[in-house]
């Protein structure tokens, strides 16, 4: 069982590693596309990375509706805590 805070930390670390964004600027409300300048190709890479880190399969469709950090955390938490 992972808490939302732990998942948030993990995703923020990934974002920093993949896209060199400033981790301290990320909050639950941060919009990936607008605030962090992530595009659809980046998102695909992020999904691939999340798969390796969590060991869970993420449906691309599930990630399509994702906009904010909170959305990501919810998707990941739904998977790892199933």
């Amino acid at each position, binding site marked *: 069982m992972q808490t939302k805070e732990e998942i948030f930390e993990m995703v923020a670390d990934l974002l920093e590693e*993949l*896209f*060199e964004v400033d981790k301290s600027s990320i909050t639950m409300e941060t919009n990936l596309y607008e605030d962090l300048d992530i*595009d*659809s*190709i*980046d*998102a*695909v*890479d992020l999904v691939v990375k999340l798969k390796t880190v969590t060991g869970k399969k993420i449906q691309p469709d599930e990630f399509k509706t994702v906009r904010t950090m909170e959305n990501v955390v919810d998707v990941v938490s739904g998977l790892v805590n199933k």
Partner: protein
Amino acid sequence: MKTINYYWRLFATAFCFFVFGVGGILIALIVAPIIIISFRNQNTRHIKGKLFIHYSFRMFIELMRLAGVLSYTVEGIEKFKEPGQLFLANHPSLIDVVFMIAFIPRTDCVVKGKLSKNPFTYGPVNAAGYIMNAEPEAVLQSSIESISSGNSLIIFPEGTRTTPGEGMKFKRGAANVALRGEFDITPVVIGCTPTTLTKSDKWYHIPPKKLHFTMKVKDKISIESFLQEKNANIAARSLTKSLEEYFSQEIKNLCLN
């Protein structure tokens, strides 16, 4: 006061749009079926389709020139010849892509899915087998395969037509194609004065004087140094930034001349 020349160009512009539309329908009704009957292999069909569109657009440009709608200059035309190139261009007007396809022999481009449903563009888009804009991964993959197979791919990295007066903002798709496929970039700098057929213009908003279209094919930009960066996402970001700077500068130079 509007001059006779203005009304002539308005009429000629309407006529050119009409020819473009009729041409699109004829390609769907006549050319595409002939290509399908004559060639069995899907790849061959698309190559023939691309060539047909290339020659049609070339004629269409000459029609616009002879009708007095526009004049044009192309610099570095010999650089178009080599097959399998990745061309990036700025996108000031609707006719940029017509010029690019007209001057590059086997051009591929990524088109909006909408164009394959439009009756005027359905025929050409399908006959040539242009890449449909869909899932980012699939578009990236098709783009790389297209260039590797000898097509020259045109990308307008702005993603849409330029809003006059605003700074350059590129999407990173083009950089990703270059980096993941390891293709150098041939930049094409396009100038169009006065500005016309931008996103907010209708076809009948013709410019106050005859349009002059300039296309400069520049020397290749090597992506070697960007490939050193292990993280593909970061490399795409820095290549995109460097391309934005390159094009901003080149467009400034174009305006000064």
